[in-house]
């Protein structure tokens, strides 16, 4: 059998696992591993400028491809810097394997230089973690780590490796296991047929149904089946922020996003529904609003999820179905087609009429600002036009994120990449790097704000080094827009620590100093044309700094403590 050092074993194991690219940053405890990377050419390494960006880039790669993202960092600060990105992936159930260097085995616990208890620090934000005790264990642990990261409800897995375990001078027999069985870990592989049957019977008798689907449908490769089910039943569909793209946004059965900044029609339909089919969604507080007792009072809730702990956590499910989305939806479609019951066409027609009536309210209509001022929504619309709706869009967190979700209509899954659960500012640019590296020829745009982009702006250097032609759309309102919006609405307009207009960088010059192209757009009349020019620069990273209306709020917006039907529709209107 071939003999390898621990460091070589690790990289070989990653290759044998099918890993093509890892995102990382070197440091003392990881140097043996970095030497192993240097000595081979099968696994690429992308050098980021901050470990948080490595995790977000791997995360973006994972969301866009469905394959696990891989991160390599050193011990101590390298490991702790990765934590925010690990937590981001954990909250959104993204498969990721994070390898962290650790001080040598004999130094662990001695407060050695750059020592941190990574297993302990990461514990609440990982699906599982491993501390490698000896080099011979590396192939088995890597195999287990990937198996755990991608199966069941996916999530990040940490492998912490003491430096001496990767010593190039000590070699051990290497063999990568083909299969793995973990006796204490057996995620469900199919749903309960009896429960699916029960759910189908309720669906066939529904008079005011809604399909509410979340990120699980995308993660579980269920988008095509979701569309087939919805088309077969002719039911309306709403997606969560994480689920956008699981159902084609331009289809007439799509109601838009639901929840805090969901559309009027989606939230009204949820509230008045008699049956909700929740698929891969978790009744998050940004969907249900804070008081779940007011949530959809007349609805019978059918809930499909791979994680039993997500079912009946906040809202009680009448028919829980634990299982992976794909086989469950397949069986459900088969049962619907074989059913001798028919959906009440008349009731469904009346329901659609009601929905069309809600749609007439045109809750997302944009009223142009006075003069030549650009509304942030218009900037997203211009991006949609310039990219024919075909781009991969990453975003940061705040108003721009909601505008992107509302105005960029995603027809395909894995095209909308944002931090929904943790809400991590600084996610967008590094995530876009991961997407662009996975799909070098695709158009990848990062919709961001001047607040979020500054949280990982250093990655412009990584983009230069890797020649990534990302398009950054900076909706620049010279303030932390969402914070300011809440302060306007709930704190009497006291803008505590949310403005910094006098200290913003010149983003065009900043982008240029990193070797990229910068464009500033200030006039509505020039918006589309300049956007088209920027998007046509296929080989360049273009930083598009758009001066937008500084007083704009995101609407609709759920009224705190209310039911789903209670929303602000503009600064002056509410339901």
């Amino acid at each position, binding site marked *: 059998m071939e003999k390898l050092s621990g460091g070589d074993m690790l990289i070989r194991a990653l290759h044998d696992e099918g890993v093509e690219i890892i995102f990382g940053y070197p440091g003392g405890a990881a140097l043996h591993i970095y030497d192993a990377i240097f000595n081979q050419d099968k696994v690429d390494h992308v050098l980021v400028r901050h470990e948080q960006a490595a995790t977000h880039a791997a995360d973006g790669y994972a969301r866009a491809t469905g394959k696990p993202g891989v991160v390599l960092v050193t011990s101590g600060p390298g490991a702790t810097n990765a934590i925010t990105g690990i937590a981001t992936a954990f909250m959104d159930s993204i498969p990721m394997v994070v390898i962290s260097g650790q001080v040598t085995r004999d130094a662990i616990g001695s407060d050695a230089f750059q020592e941190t208890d990574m*297993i*302990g620090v990461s*514990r*609440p934000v990982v*699906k*599982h*973690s491993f*501390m490698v005790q000896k080099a011979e264990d590396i192939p088995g642990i890597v195999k287990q780590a990937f198996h*755990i990261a991608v199966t069941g409800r996916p999530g990040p897995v940490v492998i912490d490796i003491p430096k001496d375990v990767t010593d190039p001078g000590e070699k051990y027999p290497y063999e990568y296991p083909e299969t793995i069985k*973990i*006796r*204490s*870990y057996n995620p469900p592989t199919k749903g309960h047929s009896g429960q699916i049957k029960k759910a189908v019977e309720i669906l066939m008798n529904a008079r005011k149904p809604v399909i509410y689907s979340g990120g699980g449908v995308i993660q579980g490769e269920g988008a095509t089946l979701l569309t087939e089910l919805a088309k077969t039943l002719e039911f309306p569909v709403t997606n969560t922020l994480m689920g956008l793209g699981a159902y084609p946004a331009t289809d007439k059965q799509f109601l838009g996003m639901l929840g805090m900044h969901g559309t009027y029609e989606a939230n009204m339909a949820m509230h008045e529904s008699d049956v909700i089919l929740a698929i891969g969604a978790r009744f998050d507080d940004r969907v249900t609003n804070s008081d779940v007792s007011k949530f959809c009072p007349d609805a019978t809730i059918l809930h499909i999820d791979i*994680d*039993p*702990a997500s079912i*009946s*956590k906040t809202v009680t499910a009448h028919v829980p179905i634990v299982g992976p989305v794909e086989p469950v939806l397949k069986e459900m479609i088969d049962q619907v087609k074989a059913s001798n019951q028919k959906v009440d066409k008349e009731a469904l027609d009346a329901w659609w009429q009601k929905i069309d009536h809600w749609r007439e309210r045109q809750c997302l209509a944009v009223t142009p600002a006075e003069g030549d001022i650009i509304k942030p929504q218009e900037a997203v619309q211009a991006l949609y036009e310039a990219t024919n709706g075909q781009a991969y869009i990453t975003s940061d967190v705040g108003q721009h994120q909601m505008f992107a979700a509302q105005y960029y209509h995603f027809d395909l899954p894995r095209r909308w990449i944002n931090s929904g659960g943790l809400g991590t500012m600084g996610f967008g640019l590094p995530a876009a790097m991961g997407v662009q590296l996975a799909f070098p020829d695709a158009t990848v745009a990062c919709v961001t704000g001047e607040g979020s982009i500054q949280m990982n702006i250093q990655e412009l250097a990584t983009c230069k080094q890797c020649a990534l032609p990302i398009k950054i759309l900076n909706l620049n309102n010279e303030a932390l827009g969402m914070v300011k919006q809440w302060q306007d609405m709930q704190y009497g307009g006291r803008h505590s620590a949310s403005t910094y207009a006098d200290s913003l960088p010149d983003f065009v010059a900043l982008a240029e100093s990193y070797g990229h192209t910068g464009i500033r757009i200030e006039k509505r009349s020039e918006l589309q044309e300049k956007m088209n020019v920027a998007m046509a620069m296929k080989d360049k990273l273009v930083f598009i700094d758009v001066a937008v209306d500084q007083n704009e709020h995101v609407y609709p917006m759920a009224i705190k403590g209310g039911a789903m039907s209670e929303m602000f529709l503009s600064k002056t209107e509410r339901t």
Partner: protein
Amino acid sequence: MRRIVSVLMENQPGALSRVVGLFSQRNYNINSLTVAPTEDPTLSRLTLTTVGDDRKIEQIIKHLNKVVDVAKLVDLTEGSHIERELMLIKVKATGAQRAEVKRICDIFRGDVVDVSPTMYTIQLTGTSEKLDGFIQALAGTTILEVARTGVSGIARGEKILTL
């Protein structure tokens, strides 16, 4: 309501901290906790007592099941079961107190396992309620130290918690 949950998990470093961490992370209570390897040294059995309404207990059970190191678990309080806790208690035993303490100890079927001129160390086994009762019965004496193991339990009859 008080629950006793028994968990079979991998006897590996880090497994216990994952279970305990889950409780603090999700704001669940742990009233007592005991853990030791089973007849199979690769498996540990952990028994904990907690309180919560049905919804909370359901979430606790589901989240414990999600911990990768957890192989199997059971809520013993769902069925008929035996629960035991062991207590070592040091009490002052001088003068008239000396005979009185011994008498109470006999009533509770405790054993005096260590004796000094001024104190007794008593070992007592039973349900937590019985142990609490014993402490209350000793109200008239000076309790110097208490060491309790926390609850361990097992289902009655044919029901077995095994892989």
